[in-house]
């Protein structure tokens, strides 16, 4: 097959033609909707328009309320759980000793360090 040479000018004209044809088609398809004139559908009986306050309520107040509601739903569980441990951000809580001595403070003060034991150390 022989390749056709397309000059820049004719390509531009083609693109313009396609764009015009597409928008014309869309307009033709939408003609019935435009038949009754702008802002007025057949059989419609529009009421009074919104006042400024009503407009603000419906188009600013209600979306803002929905936004705040969703934000609360997202953050509430972690707020209820309280602060959680994150490596590198320090430690805030009082010491906890599971299965420790009954009177921890006195026991630690009077204790002698274990000798002859073993174990391991690690850091993260």
């Amino acid at each position: 097959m022989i390749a056709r040479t397309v000059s820049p000018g004719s390509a531009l004209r083609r693109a313009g033609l396609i764009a015009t044809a597409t928008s014309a088609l869309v307009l033709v398809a939408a003609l019935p909707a435009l038949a009754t004139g702008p802002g007025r559908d057949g059989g419609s009986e529009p009421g009074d328009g919104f006042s400024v306050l009503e407009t603000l309520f419906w188009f600013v107040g209600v979306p803002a309320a929905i936004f705040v509601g969703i934000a609360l739903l997202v953050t509430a569980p972690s707020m209820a759980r309280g602060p959680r441990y994150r490596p590198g951000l320090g430690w805030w809580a009082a010491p906890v000793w599971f299965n420790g001595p009954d009177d921890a403070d006195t026991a630690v003060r009077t204790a002698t360090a274990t000798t002859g034991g073993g174990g391991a150390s690690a850091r993260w």
Partner: protein
Amino acid sequence: MPAGDAFSARQQEDVVRAIRLARQQSDLPVSVYVGTLEGDSRATALQLHGALGDRAAGSVLVAVDPGARRVEIVTGPEVRRRLDDRAAGLAAMTMTSAFQAGDLSGGIANGVLALAEHAHAPRSLHTDTP
């Protein structure tokens, strides 16, 4: 057991359950301390282990300092025969890998269970068969 706000009720329950399982399955008394280890962390952990009193020799202390990011596992002289330092090191690694992800209670519970698993006395199969 002083209950701080370091853990939620469910997290505390996880740790307590792991400690109970270690005692039931391997007869291993484990004590878990979570708080700051002032000064030399190893020396402080040994002091805390000594504070367990009479049961120190047969107990394991897991001391976690979340602020300084250190774990110290101290085994008493008696329990060391069942739980060597290599096993303690493996348990410490189990814990630190969870701590790195920010899971403090889960890491402690898994570490305690790892200690219990290593301390589990191997069943001797030849003593009860003629």
